[in-house]
């Protein structure tokens, strides 16, 4: 029975997150953030626990959870690279940039590399249109992407 302790452990850690944030007004999204911070993603089995605690239905929590792309269904890689695909960046060639990045890292959008180094995601506007095409690595924004910058990014990821 190896699985048993794991799921009770998830329940306990989720309960701790909930009790810390439950008193907020509109606590569902903060709790989902808290759970993601705790586990690195939002494990499916935490959703009914959250629903029960907030007196919501499973459906409602599922609806909110799936609405926001930033809530993860699976653990991310050690690094997270988000490449902007919104209008301004598209007009500055972000499609081609994304293709190069995908090739370099060997993964597509919403995928994590086999070695667990990196997760690649599209993002729709970083507010960095003046420096398009733009991306964000682990929360740090990078402007004016080109082949050199992509190499640098890859280097950092694999270092």
């Amino acid at each position, binding site marked *: 029975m190896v699985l048993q302790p794991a799921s009770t452990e998830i329940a306990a850690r989720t309960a701790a997150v909930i009790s810390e944030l439950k008193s907020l007004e509109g606590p569902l999204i903060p709790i989902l953030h808290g759970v993601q911070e705790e586990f690195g993603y939002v494990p*499916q089995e935490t*959703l*009914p626990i959250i*629903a029960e605690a907030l*007196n*919501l*239905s*499973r*459906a*409602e*929590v*599922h*609806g909110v959870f*799936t*609405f926001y*792309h930033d809530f993860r269904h699976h653990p991310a890689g050690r690094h997270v690279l988000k490449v902007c695909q919104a209008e301004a960046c598209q007009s500055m060639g972000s499609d081609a940039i994304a293709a190069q990045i995908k090739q370099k890292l060997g993964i597509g959008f919403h995928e994590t590399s086999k070695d667990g180094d990196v997760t690649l995601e599209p993002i729709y506007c970083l507010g960095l249109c003046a420096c398009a095409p733009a991306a964000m690595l682990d929360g740090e924004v990078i402007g004016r992407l080109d082949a050199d910058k992509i190499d640098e990014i890859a280097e950092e990821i694999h270092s």
Partner: protein
Amino acid sequence: MGLIQEIDFGTPASKSEKQVTLTVDGFEVTVPEGTSIMRASMEAGIAIPKLCATDMVDAFGSCRLCLVEIEGRNGTPSSCTTPVMPGMVVHTQTGRLKDIRKGVMELYISDHPLDCLTCAANGDCELQDMAGAVGLRDVRYGYEGDNHVRAKNNGVENFKWMAKDESNPYFTYDPSKCIVCSRCVRACEEVQGTFALTIEGRGFGSRVSPGAHELFLDSECVSCGACVQACPTATLTEKSVIQIGQPEHSVVTTCAYCGVGCSFKAEMRGDELVRMVPWKDGKANRGHSCVKGRFAYGYATHKERILNPMIRENIADPWREVSWEEALEYTAKEFRRIQYQYGRGAVGGITSSRCTNEETFLVQKLIRQGFGNNNVDTCARVCHSPTGYGLGQTYGTSAGTQDFDSVEDTDVALIIGANPASAHPVFASRLKKRLRAGAKLIVIDPRRTEMVKSAHIEAEHHLALKPGTNVAIVTAMAHVIVTEGLFDEKFIRERCDWSEFQDYAEFVSDPQYSPEAAEKLSGVPAETIRGAARLYATGGNAAIYYGLGVTEHSQGSTTVIGIANLAMLTGNIGRRGVGVNPLRGQNNVQGACDMGSFPHELPGYRHISGDAVREIYDSLWGVKLDDEPGLRIPNMLDAAVDGTFKGIYIQGEDILQSDPDTKHVSAGLAAMECVVVQDLFLNETANYAHVFLPGSTFLEKDGTFTNAERRINRVRKVMAPKNGYADWEVTQKLAQAMGLNWNYQHPSEIMDEVAKTTPSFANVSYEFLEKMGSVQWPCNDKAPEGTPIMHIDGFVRGKGKFIRTEYVATDEKTGPRFPLLLTTGRILSQYNVGAQTRRTENVAWHAEDLLEIHPHDAEVRGLRDGDWVRLQSRAGETTLRATITDKVSPGVVYTTFHHPDTQANVITTDFSDWATNCPEYKVTAVQVGASNGPSEWQKEYTEQAQQSRRIAGQLEAAE
């Protein structure tokens, strides 16, 4: 006939009294303030195109089809979300609007299958209608792009496509046809209050999801069908429509399940029922329904239904099918023989709470006029007879004080011993809606029911009492109200007997009735009792809703009196939002009681000993009625065992399964010489019957049902009786066979006789019901249009009467041998003894009775979830499977009584209410232990049942 088309106004009606006048397309229209432009326009007869709006749910403004132009305003606001303003000038059809609408429709259709001709919604599809309405001729975007329609795009798997979900037995979910209007999601939230549906994802990826991307059957869905009704396309469709096709005519009738009494349109194709759709003008349900009413009608055509009369001289013999004449002749002869041989009082009958008022009236008339005694009783004996006694004593009438609409003005709801979410689901939805709007809730129940805590519902106080201690709790609440000075002195002085109040106040003020004392008896913390009492007394309009958890106790009548006292103490009676409301179990149990089904009462609750009352019937029926009350059901059975009661006519009730102490019931039945059962199926009681008269369903006859709010609703025939006769005709033929000169041509003539002889029904007639839709008794010259709320200016009996409520513990006590308390109840998908619902697809949700047991109690007995367990009481034992849950407290176990092979009533004892003999189903001391399978009794019973269901000339009887 034709199909009844209800107008969809798009958004709910506004309740404002202030009127606003505006102009729509050049026509002036005046509507209440707060009305949407869409609704105002529809009032003026102009239908604005729409997809996401429907008047059962609030406006949403997502489909962008209902846009309008308003003079002096910019843009094209959506008419569903824009409220009317005085003097507003609205245009619903301009060049700009036409272009926008066409463009929107093109987008919808570019991601929608074009299989209209073979689609189940063909002829009933709003998307199709709107394509027509906006003049869609061409889709500029084509159909080749990203879509949810095809499983594969050019041979490549389409991840956006989802397979059809057919898991629900009654409807299908086909995501490829969904336009994501959210009507289903909103219906589930706003109308039903379950919140089982959501929109998952966002943008083009948005999809309707039951639960967390689950199958409908595995999700939180309770299958009420509100989503199916709300869906504008074929995305959510009744399987019956898929199978049969669209209906062509419809008839408004009344549901034959619980005491809510929902109005439905029975939508027909020829004489085949296509679907039941709740009727928006139905005043009890306001367009909503539950899984039973909407979907569970399959029993009417179930293969086990018996369609031919049968007789047998001996219950060990197989049944012999005979003609109606022979069966009725035989019955009449037997009853006459028995009366000749054993005396006039040796026969009796039981009226049915599932049959119509008219049928019930005839059965009691047959007994009083034809049998010449008062040996008539009804199943209310085993459910709400204490309500009749308790409310009769305190208020002067035996019925709920409110209509269901009243809940919309309730600030505090107190639920005692009832689980409306399971047993009265449509009322529960209406109550939940009010709770979400801010009303508070107190629940007194040993179990943590859905009303205590479920999505968006949380009771302020849950008094999880030990079964059997209702009186202690209710009296302790009165103690708090009196000693803390929370009572309404003005109301009591005006409306009640002051000296009786003083006596009651003195009685409850004694510290032995304090919450602290009640805590010791009930296990409910004193502070919780105090909190509940304070909230009930001071929280605004407070209404009490109660069920069989109140009545089915040795002190059932006392609790009802205590409840009546609470409402009088706090002045919560005689206006909207308050009152005392028994939630009646069966569709017409209120009506059966009204129609004189009790051995001591003539129709309208008039005691049989009253000379003036008897005189009315004596002269009309040409007989001399017996002035002595007759036998109650338990007395009939006792007398049968003693050998003095030999024949019984049972219409539509299964006493062997539903009444307590099964062994005693079967012994009583076995001792009789002529047991006549009139029913749809060979029920459990029929195992002991000598004559079986096939019954008709509510779809096959005209009549009326009276629901828990005293509302007399019409039942209309939608198909010919498969058994040949409606139940009232069968009773009439039996009466004729016994030599009575009855000659009713239509149930309306029976109702006329009721109206003529019963003051509270004086103005009721079919013609009047046709005009009014429905009416709540009393309906006479004092209340010409009926009485939605009772006791408005004074109690029916004059002054409200306070009666002392002394707590006396039941004799059914736990001890070392039987340490647990068993209590019983119902589940949403099944109804009563299950004779109907077990013969529908509802078994998908509840295929067997389960024993709920707390983890602590399970652990000390070494039981695991799903184990077979033996359930023993002093009366008997049975076996069933256990489910481990903390919904029940330690020391308490719970089960349902829907399945005959469990026979929960083998366990229940013959203790009963002191005033009315209502059995104490809700408290039985039991022991639970591990078991390997069915008990000896269950095996013998099954054997006997199989033997007794044999029909000569047929292979093994079904079931």
